[in-house]
């Protein structure tokens, strides 16, 4: 951007970290050689974990349904390779805690046999409900990282009658270029997916927001969208977190999403470019979501770039494929601003993993935190208009309710505040800790309320049982008394009869 453009058009919120996207973004897409084993987790989306429907020892084809959705907000899981189900057990989750979760292990038979699929010649002739059904059946979730089941989002969008589909080609995190790569290589597929999604939600136009540090992607998408005037390509200023829903919506349409509302309530729905491409695969070709492009980058990687790999591949295999200079000092799933630190490399790739970063010692260096000097950099950087320095001070002092009064709940943990802090205070960790504690308190309160109800219910049960017991005893007594009286009357009658 030119100097004046930078001053007048660049948003005041957010930060502008070093890009680190090239040369990985410019390297051609590589296909990972088929892995020997894949580990398909049952929970790769927001909502209920999928329920397995296969058994250990069962042979499966690529794309076969492994686990069905549980509940309204859930997504199915399909086999990323053809082979045999080796186990259904616990693997380490790609989560900071190092805890585990359930995954289905498949031994690859290397035959790459796809299951029978039902391609559709003209997806745009399908009814919106049919498109939604196919999207749900394909297990498509938000591939930008949010992993919200896309079909549920389509239904919501149709119900609230959104008029604009915003396609998120922002990819504002440094180091990542998976979306860049898919736009450059498969722009036609992305645009087709965009039009299918538009049909599914009933939108009149689609605005594709692409950060202006991706000129090749913008050019490719412009070419692909030329025949379709309802799909409009809109370059946006490069600034983190431009790829965040709320910020992108405001930049592209000027609409502001209220704090307690969803984007659909202002008439827009946001979907990632990779998600749209996956919808194209699912609806036009009948192929479920089993593979994705993932960026492997970082100082420790020999040949950084974008890799097309089956979901469920171990991170270690991806890193070995790209080669490592040295033992990574830290492995991150996602980008550096919001990514999850992985406990080790033996974790499977999940649907929402857009990048794996292997940092060397220099990149992984964490400066020691100092005292807050109230410089206000964090307040200026916060895209949501919060005051991180105040919230951090309250949480440090243990006053979580005070922090909540500063609208801690609106914080999206984007990391801008901790990025700009000259004292390097781990603000995001404070906020995540506080949010977790507040949710735990909320859950405890619900539990205590439920316990109170159970105690009351028990008291009522005991009362009722005592009452029934007393009534039964009284009834038996009355019966005995009546029987006694009857027997006495009979004896009397007999005696009278004998005397008479």
């Amino acid at each position, binding site marked *: 951007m030119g100097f004046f453009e930078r001053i007048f058009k660049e948003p005041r919120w957010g930060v502008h970290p070093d890009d680190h996207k090239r040369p990985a973004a410019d390297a051609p897409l590589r296909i990972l050689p088929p892995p020997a084993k894949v580990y398909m987790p049952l929970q790769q989306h927001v909502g209920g974990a999928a329920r397995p429907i296969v058994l250990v020892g069962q042979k499966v084809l690529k794309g076969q349904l492994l686990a069905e959705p549980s509940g309204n907000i859930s997504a199915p899981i399909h086999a990323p390779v053809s082979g045999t189900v080796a186990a259904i057990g616990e693997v380490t989750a790609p989560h900071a805690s*190092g805890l585990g979760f359930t995954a289905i292990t498949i031994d690859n038979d290397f035959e790459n046999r796809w299951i029978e699929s039902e391609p559709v010649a003209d997806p745009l002739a399908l009814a919106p409900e049919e498109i939604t059904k196919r999207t749900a059946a394909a297990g498509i979730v938000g591939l930008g990282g949010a992993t919200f089941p896309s079909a549920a989002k389509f239904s919501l969008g149709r119900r609230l009658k959104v008029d604009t589909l915003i396609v998120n080609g922002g990819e504002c995190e440094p180091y990542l270029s998976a979306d860049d790569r898919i736009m450059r290589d498969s722009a036609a597929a992305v645009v087709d997916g965009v039009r299918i999604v538009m049909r599914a939600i009933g939108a009149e136009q689609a605005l594709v927001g692409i950060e202006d540090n991706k000129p090749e992607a913008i050019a490719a998408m412009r070419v692909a969208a030329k025949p379709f005037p309802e799909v409009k390509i809109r370059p946006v200023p490069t600034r983190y977190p431009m790829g965040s829903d709320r910020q992108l919506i405001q930049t592209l349409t000027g*609409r502001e999403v209220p704090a307690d509302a969803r984007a659909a309530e202002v008439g827009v729905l946001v979907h990632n470019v990779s998600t749209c491409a996956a919808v194209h695969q699912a609806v036009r070709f009948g192929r479920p979501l089993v593979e994705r492009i993932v960026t492997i980058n970082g100082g420790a990687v020999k040949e950084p770039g974008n890799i097309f790999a089956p979901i469920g591949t171990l991170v270690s295999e991806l890193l070995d494929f790209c080669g490592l200079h040295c033992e990574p000092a830290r492995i991150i799933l996602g980008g550096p601003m919001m990514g999850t630190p992985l406990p080790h490399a033996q974790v499977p790739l999940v649907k929402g993993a857009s990048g794996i970063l292997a940092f060397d010692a220099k990149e992984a260096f964490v400066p020691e935190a100092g005292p807050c*000097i109230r410089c206000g950099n964090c307040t200026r950087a916060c895209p949501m208009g919060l005051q991180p320095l105040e919230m951090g001070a309250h949480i440090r002092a243990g006053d979580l309710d005070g922090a909540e009064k500063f609208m801690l709940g609106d914080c999206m943990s984007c990391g801008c505040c901790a990025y700009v802090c000259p004292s390097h205070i781990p603000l995001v960790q404070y906020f995540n800790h506080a949010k977790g504690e507040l949710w735990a308190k909320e859950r405890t309160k619900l539990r205590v309320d439920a316990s109170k109800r159970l105690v009351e219910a028990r008291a009522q049960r005991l009362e009722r049982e005592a009452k029934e017991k007393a009534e039964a005893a009284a009834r038996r007594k009355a019966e005995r008394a009546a029987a006694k009286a009857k027997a006495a009357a009979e004896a009397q009658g007999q005696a009278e009869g004998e005397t008479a």
Partner: protein
Amino acid sequence: MNAMNTPISSPHTTTTQSVSRVMVTVMLALVPATLFGFWLYGWPSIWLWLVTVGAATFGEAFCLRLMDRPVLPAVHDGSAILTGWLLAMSLPPWAPWWIGAFGGLFATMLAKQAFGGLGQNLFNPAMVARVALLISFPVQMTSWVAPLPLDAIGAPGPISGLLVTLKGIPSGLDAVASASLLGFAKTELSRGVDLLQSLGHAPIPTWFGSRPGSLGETAAWLIAAGGVVMMFLRIISWHIPLAMLAGIAIPAAILHAVDPARYLDMPTHLLSGGAMLGAFFIATDYVTSPSTPKGQLIFGAGCGVLTYVIRTWAGYPEGVAFAVLLMNALTPIIDSYVKPRIYGRDRKGSALKAQR
């Protein structure tokens, strides 16, 4: 690899800026004005500056050691040095050594460490020390000298300069005790001599001053230049300096137009006293000023107007230190009432209504 029981939180990248870098940048912005002041007032001012900065640093280290906190990281961040430097810039250049020593110790020990260290103090430490000195030692704090540049005849050399700082101005020295412009104007007014007459005899304020004042007073344009450089480097924002200078300039201009015989004109107000130093370096102190841009405007305007009021109608000729301290006291209130608007909420904090 990170241990499982202490995961490292995002973000996994951070700015290269640090507290020491910020302090060093501010000090570099002060260097031109300081060197000019050294040249203008000679060796005694250099020794005084050294004593003040040294005392401030020593006070900080002493307190940290007393509290069993690590000394080196805290001293390394340069905030104590900067406090001492700013205090030295506001003292009379030929003041005795114990003024600088007492001031430096007071600033870091009582006005900063006693509150809890960096980031915890309510009042600007340099200004607290200056006010304490002014009230306790009014004579020494208002004994200004006319400039006696380093290369002028009769200017003291290093050793005799040291002796001036240690023992006071000897009778043989050609230093001319003089009043600062503001002090002169106020004394004359209190004697009933109005400005149109008295200012004929007074030293003329210029941007490139050579009239008596503190180290930070005479080279107003060098101070302003340093301040503007800091604004471009995003160390400070324009809100406080602009608001403070406007707060001084606007009342000055209005009242001077109304009665030139009683009220000094706007350029004089802006160029004398600690107005420039205060606007760019002192009021902009992070810890003691509001953290939001709107709050900073209010704070700066308050500092400016109070400075003007104290200079014009109160008992002291110079008002910046008092004005800054009074506004420091209001900073928490400003911060609690002036908050940025949260995305998706209105000014009061309740959620917006959905609009397509």
